[in-house]
């Protein structure tokens, strides 16, 4: 049975359950006039039956979407001839892909080993059998659920309460998704990172000074054996983030101060949306601008001054990243500066302080916790920013503080290690997850500290 047919039938059953239950409820009440005898409205009985019919079936469908293919493939693997069965997981998956291609009848050139033909047949048979089974189970569940719900309808049935309890359960489920996402992130990076630390000691990774992840593809190949000391990456990330913050913090803060303490309302109305445009531009565009326009400019400027600027200098990437972060800092600072009570400004102005003295000595100190929180969030963004550095910073893991040289960052290395063909057991690939783990932990700490600081600050003035 085709999936769409099955889904259509399923939907029909659910709708039928709704109307059947509604009718039955009205009949039980003794017609439309007797609706007062019902605890819940007929429509609630309808919803109740529809939910009873839909939920268990949907659960089975979701389960199947998650594991169905694996079960079928597991069966297929047992029918594979011997040389295949003892293959590595990565090779095996290629073979299985070929089986799939054979089964779907796509003859896309190239010759496939003939011994796979019967396997493909077996796969097809299993596949269609599983589909039938699934359809049968789903439709049976829908029918049974709906019928059972109709059966239990009594005038006293608290259908509305039951429907509401079910809906509430769904709402709770949706709200826990954020937790599951965090857990998912943690599990997926930790799982792979632990495998990586099985091959490369964690101390070497965290404190090693050399990074060259090019491992030999085959054992007999001559090549670098791979070094996974991540310090140059951390240093590069910090260097670029520091440049970005050196640009973004003073400028973003001054923008916020200017807009909230000096600018006329008309100018504010004009400038704020323009800066929001700056915030809405995708990072890939910034990266392109950094690589195509800013880097050559810096290079030429450096040459004019007799400096040797690398074409993928940390300065270029950091500068553009800083500009990207300006609106972030300025809007967060604007919020906290505006939260400082006007009475404090009045108190200072009434003593004869100028606006700048008031701002520097009263407003900024009062807003400092909020500003610090915003800056921490901005640092977390700078560290995690990917596209700008991928496009405008280099790949060479150099340990330097010279902003004119090319450095590489954690995110650049994650992208380089994971884009393109990959085998899933090499330390090269797993290293990306270890880097991801570090990135996640660092930004998590920054975010939570920043959120706490900002929250406490808000409470202070509310």
């Amino acid at each position: 049975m085709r999936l769409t047919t099955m889904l259509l039938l399923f939907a029909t059953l659910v709708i039928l359950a709704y109307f059947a239950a509604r009718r039955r409820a009205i009949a039980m009440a003794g017609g439309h006039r007797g609706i007062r005898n019902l605890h819940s409205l007929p429509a609630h009985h309808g919803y109740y039956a529809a939910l009873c019919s839909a939920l268990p079936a949907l659960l089975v469908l979701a389960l199947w979407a998650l594991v169905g293919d694996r079960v079928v493939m597991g069966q297929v693997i047992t029918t594979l001839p011997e040389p295949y069965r003892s293959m590595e997981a990565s090779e095996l998956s290629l073979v299985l892909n070929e089986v799939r291609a054979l089964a779907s009848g796509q003859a896309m050139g190239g010759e496939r080993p003939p011994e796979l033909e019967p396997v493909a047949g077996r796969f097809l048979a299993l596949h269609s059998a599983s589909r039938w089974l699934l359809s049968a189970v789903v439709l049976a569940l829908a029918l049974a659920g709906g019928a059972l719900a109709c059966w239990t309808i009594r005038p006293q049935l608290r259908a509305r309460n039951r429907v509401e309890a079910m809906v509430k359960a769904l709402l709770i489920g949706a709200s826990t998704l954020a937790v599951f996402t965090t857990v998912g992130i943690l599990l997926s990076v930790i799982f792979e990172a632990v495998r990586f630390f099985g091959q490369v000691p964690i101390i070497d990774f965290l404190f090693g000074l050399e990074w060259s992840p090019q491992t030999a593809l085959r054992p007999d190949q001559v090549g670098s054996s791979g070094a996974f000391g991540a310090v140059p990456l951390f240093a590069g990330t910090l260097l670029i983030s520091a440049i970005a913050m050196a640009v973004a913090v003073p400028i973003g803060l001054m923008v916020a101060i200017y807009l909230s303490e000096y600018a006329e309302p008309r100018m504010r109305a004009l400038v704020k949306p323009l800066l929001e445009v700056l915030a809405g531009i995708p990072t890939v565009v910034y990266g392109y601008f950094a690589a195509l326009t800013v880097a050559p400019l810096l290079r030429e400027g450096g040459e004019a001054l007799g400096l040797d600027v690398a074409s993928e200098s940390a300065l270029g990437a950091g500068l553009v990243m800083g500009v990207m972060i300006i609106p972030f800092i300025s809007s967060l600072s604007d919020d906290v500066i505006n939260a400082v009570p006007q009475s404090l400004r009045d108190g200072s102005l009434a003593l004869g302080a100028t606006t700048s003295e008031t701002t520097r000595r009263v407003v900024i100190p009062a807003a400092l916790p909020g500003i610090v929180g915003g800056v921490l969030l901005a640092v977390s963004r700078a560290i995690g920013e990917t596209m700008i550095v991928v496009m405008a910073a280099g790949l060479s893991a150099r340990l330097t503080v010279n902003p004119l040289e090319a450095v590489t960052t954690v995110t650049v290395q994650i992208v380089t290690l994971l884009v393109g063909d990959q085998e899933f057991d090499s330390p090269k690939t797993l290293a990306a997850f270890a880097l991801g783990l570090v990135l996640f932990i660092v930004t998590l700490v920054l975010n939570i500290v920043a959120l706490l600081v900002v929250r406490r600050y808000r409470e202070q003035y509310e």
Partner: protein
Amino acid sequence: MPLDDRSTDRPVIPTTSQRTGGGSGTVGDIHAREPVITVRDCNVHYGDTHALKQVSLDIGRNEVVSLIGPSGCGKSTFIRCLNRMNDTIESARVTGDFRLDGQDIYAKDMDVVLLRARVGMVFQKPNPFPKSIFENVAYGPRIHGLAGSRRQLDDIVYESLERAGLLAEVKDRLDEPGTGLSGGQQQRLCIARAIAVSPDVILMDEPCSALDPIATARIEDLIDELREKYAIAIVTHSMQQAARVSQRTAYFHLGNLVEVGPTEKIFTNPGHKLTEDYVTGRFG
């Protein structure tokens, strides 16, 4: 506007009333004995609202002038004109002749920094800076460069706290935040902060409205002491307070300065029907 044309029901009191300042129609003598600030024909508009109409009044040395009147009558607006705090309100438009020791307050070359250093202000709600008690008082002297050394700064801070009657209570915890003090202490801290820059005039905008009676009494005593050195204008809602602390009282009504006179006279023998209604509690 319940009373938009008061000229119709104004009683005629030919003996004591003097009309001054461009015919604003104020009853009583607007002059002070030793004027520091003189205001003539002050008008203030907030957008389309005419908040103050042709007000003329002097504020004199060594005296306390209290400004009374129902809410929204323009008394706060008036004192905010005197140190140009209305400059911070975008829509406010101020006209009239304002002079501080003969200098035009609204002249182009008048520096608000200098003006406000001479005309201090205390606000309705205590607004200590989120800094230590010491730093709160030291703030003014620091920005104006009044102290050449740490020693001098200490002197100014201690002296101001002493004069504000706060020193005894806080001298052991000058490093603690000013926001940790009680409401009355905070307000006295704000007064200390204002006198630390040695102003000539102190404007007080309902300084006790957020305080309990005991704290209020202390502030009132303080105001009475401060009179020796400063010219003080105080906006208040409380007629008792006006009677207790001030030598002269001005009654505002709907943007008009209805009557000015010695405090005693205003409360015992007002010259204007509106004043009488207000001080006898018939409305307001």
